[in-house]
């Protein structure tokens, strides 16, 4: 990904609740450069991703070079530059989950849905993400289907569960 650093002044629609939240966060921190990560968190949580326009807006308001905003936004895994699909499956790849066979689910996602981690199907239905340990190791192996943590299943059960979940959601 590259970014054009020569941006014209960016205006956003401040009647949009999401942008209001973003602005309020910067305001709360007196538009300090320090607030960059905090602000990007709010952009990510409100919009689901941080795109170039959002980066340019935040850069302009916090008086930070756009290159730096880009650097920070791409450094941290939490921020994604593209929206995710309608449904998101997050697979925990922590050690406890790995020991219990979650690597087989990665292969399964590739075979069955053609997805590598951090990819979305071309019809934008399903995103497959991985997480570096969600801290629910007691329930390993763990996957998160649309925000709901599922654990303590055999690999085969997980595969069936994913299928059920997708057909339920789409049916």
């Amino acid at each position, binding site marked *: 990904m590259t970014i054009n650093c020569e941006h014209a002044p960016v205006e956003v629609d401040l009647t949009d609740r999401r942008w209001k939240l973003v602005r309020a966060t910067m305001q709360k921190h007196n538009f300090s450069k320090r607030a960059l990560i*905090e602000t990007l968190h709010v952009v990510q949580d409100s919009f689901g991703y941080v795109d170039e326009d959002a980066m340019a807006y935040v850069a302009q308001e916090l008086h930070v070079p756009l290159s730096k905003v880009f650097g*920070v936004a791409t450094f941290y895994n939490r921020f994604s530059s593209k929206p995710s699909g309608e449904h998101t499956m997050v697979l925990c790849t*922590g*050690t406890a989950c790995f020991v219990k066979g979650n*690597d087989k689910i990665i292969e399964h996602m590739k075979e069955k849905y053609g997805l590598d981690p951090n990819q979305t199907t071309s019809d934008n239905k399903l995103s497959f993400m991985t*997480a*570096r340990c*969600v*801290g629910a190791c007691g329930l390993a192996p763990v996957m998160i289907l649309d925000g709901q943590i599922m654990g303590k299943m055999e690999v085969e059960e997980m595969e069936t569960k994913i299928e059920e979940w997708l057909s339920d959601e789409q049916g």
Partner: protein
Amino acid sequence: MNKDNLSEIVQKEQAIAASYKHTIHVCGGTGCVSSNSPAIIAALEKEIKLRGLENEIMVKQVGCMGLCAAGPIVSIQPDGFLYKHVTIEDAAEIIDHLGGKPIERILIDTTQHFFTRQRKVTLKHSGVVNPEKIEDYIAHGGYTGLVKAITALTPEKIIDEIKASGLRGRGGSGFPTATKWELVKKQNNPMKYIICNADEGDPGAFMDRSILESDPHAVIEGMTIAAYAVGASQGYIYVRAEYPLAVKRLRVAIRQAERNGLLGEDIVGAGFSFNIDLRLGAGAFVCGEETALMNSIEGERGTPRVRPPYPAESGIDGKPTLINNVETFANVPSIVNQGGEWFASIGSEKSKGTKVFALTGKIANTGLIEVPMGITLREIIFDIGGGIPGGHKFKAVQTGGPSGGCIPEQFLDTPVDYENLTKLGSIMGSGGIIVIDDTSNMIEMAKYFMEFSMEESCGKCIPCRVGTLRIYNILNKFLEGNATMQDLKTLEDLCTMMQTTSLCGLGKAAPNPVISSLRFFRQEYLDRIKTEDKETAEPETVTA
């Protein structure tokens, strides 16, 4: 808020608690919440209302009770029964049995070693106190340490107590806590910072998450005592955004502490002011490294800085900064309350107190445990952990996550402390213990950790950025059966290179899983070397 106010709250809360005949504790930790514990609370409350027993039975959400694999867990007080795998259908039956015999079907045997061999100091409130209610924490002796520290002790005296306790950093390094505090206190600067490192990034570790979710006030109290001792006025808790429940409970706890005059301006009316802000991590393992974490707090990319200067001299904004781990801070209130000597009476000669471990992998009782330092790995795995399930055989145990190493069977009787684990080529780390059975391949494990380090390498220094990739590629050659003796040598050279030349602790420690598997499971590597190369292969060596 002063001592008398605290006593008033204690009395009031105890009177309320005494007015109920039965109290039902329902686990509200991440593990149990995922297996539906909030619905169980609702079902119990509905059942109680239906029977008009609201004044006799209290349902309370508490923190982690440890046995995560058996969740959701419900505890019946004062009877002391513990129920496992509770469902909403069990609610009526649980109420029926109150004051009588327990429900055998879901009863957990609390006489098993999992419970009897533990010693709860850091986690004493976990599973007992409602983490979202400051009054409950106070009723269990909370904030008395802070009030005592600020009103009756000098900063020097507090540091003396910490020194006497022998407390060492629980984030993994084992640096003496009092020495760090003294260093920061010594700095002549009106602005000093305190950071609580809650960026628990090791995969397979969830001690800090559990403490934050179960007892957030203990961490806030510990930080505030530390701030008073070193003369800091601003604190940050840097917590992973992946821990939403911990974040929520910290927010609640900070607000409650501020409202009660236990945090913020003029704490307990003694003229001392200290604020705490939360900073959310954004998914970068390297931010667990203290200097990278400080960069992240400043809104920068989380890359490490060259040390020295150490944070104690030049941290956030170049100001003196004290940075400790969650578990370290959580131990502070008890030490101030009960004295350093009391704490030092627990544990081994050089490692005092208890340690919280997250027990996971191929083990019967996965969950959160707390044991005195000096306990053996065998006791942890086979007594408390209940051994290896499914008729499999123990192969190794990994401590210290991607920065640690594996320990094979012959060293299971080693007492667990900082020095011993380091001697074995592993580290204490933050406390993740992952048990590996005979179905796992050690090169696969080493590759798993190397892949982790490779992806999480921040890229600032070349030894780590390139070294992790090269090691990962060589490990793959072994797994494919294409490795040569030269590859084995290159692998070892690369490990030494990374250990000696990386910029930060994470890079230096990243080869540990490879080095330790080479040390204890060398044959697995040799078995994968191409046959034509094997003629010159060296014999298996295991050194202690």
